[in-house]
């Protein structure tokens, strides 16, 4: 398998950190995903999807346990990501798992809405701590 060709994005107040572990692509979103974060996330999502297909990963884990807020515009980027996977061929399709912190109440509600889009592709798991 080729090494990950996806760079982290670090801005003031928001970061995206992709890492590859075996056949799983981890994407950690941290900080606040608001208007300032939108161009970075909307730029990253298609690249991450292409990379997941190139590496033929079985799963992408989107770790949001350190994400303290997401606005609807950034949620749209995640909706687009789910749509990319839903429209991929069966061979290129992968599982999307959102890792949430149950103490951040908004996360379960906001991510559940994404899961309802494609329950067969999207899972929600609770972050268990370090």
């Amino acid at each position: 398998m080729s090494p990950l060709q996806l760079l982290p994005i670090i801005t003031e107040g928001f970061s995206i950190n992709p890492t590859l572990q075996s056949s799983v692509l981890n994407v950690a979103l941290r900080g606040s995903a608001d208007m300032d974060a939108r161009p970075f996330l909307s730029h990253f999502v298609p690249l991450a999807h292409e990379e997941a297909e190139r590496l033929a990963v079985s799963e992408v884990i989107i770790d949001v346990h350190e994400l303290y807020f997401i606005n609807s515009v950034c949620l749209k980027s995640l909706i687009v990501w789910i749509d990319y996977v839903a429209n991929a061929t069966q061979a290129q399709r992968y599982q999307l798992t959102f890792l949430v912190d149950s103490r951040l109440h908004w996360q379960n509600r906001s991510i559940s809405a994404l899961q309802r889009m494609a329950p067969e592709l999207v899972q929600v798991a609770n972050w268990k701590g370090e």
Partner: protein
Amino acid sequence: MSIRVVRLSYSLPPLPRWIGLTRCYLSDLLQPILVNDDEIDRLAIGVHELLENCVKYSNGDTVRFEFEVNRQGNGAVANIRTTNSALRSHVLDLCHRIDAINAAPDPVAHYDEVIRDSLVQAGSSLGLARVRAESFVHLSYQIQKDVVVVFGEMPVRLRDVL
């Protein structure tokens, strides 16, 4: 009788920097006032999305934001109000969205539908439906010429000491 517990209001230029600052300030302010963090999270989403719409679509020099928590009898209500001028087409679109939200029998099913529709639209168009479905904030509006006022209302529970 209504007793005011919290009030924050300002008129400022429509700059994105106020949105996150307002959300974070109110979240901190409400910590010792509301019983549970879930209500604070829900209000934070409501405040952020309504203020972001207000700033994004404003075509004037200032926008107005008002937030209050009032004790009413045995309960309490949080009120959000945003005021901005905007292009007529934006005002009508906003009113259409709020009317559709209020006409929908199930806010969550309506939000799911808006999410699906957003895939074929350039913008997100999710904010208002999200506020209703996830924050349980009731939305309404008033229009006067090119000025639109959006109201958000959510019951809250105050701590016993207040």
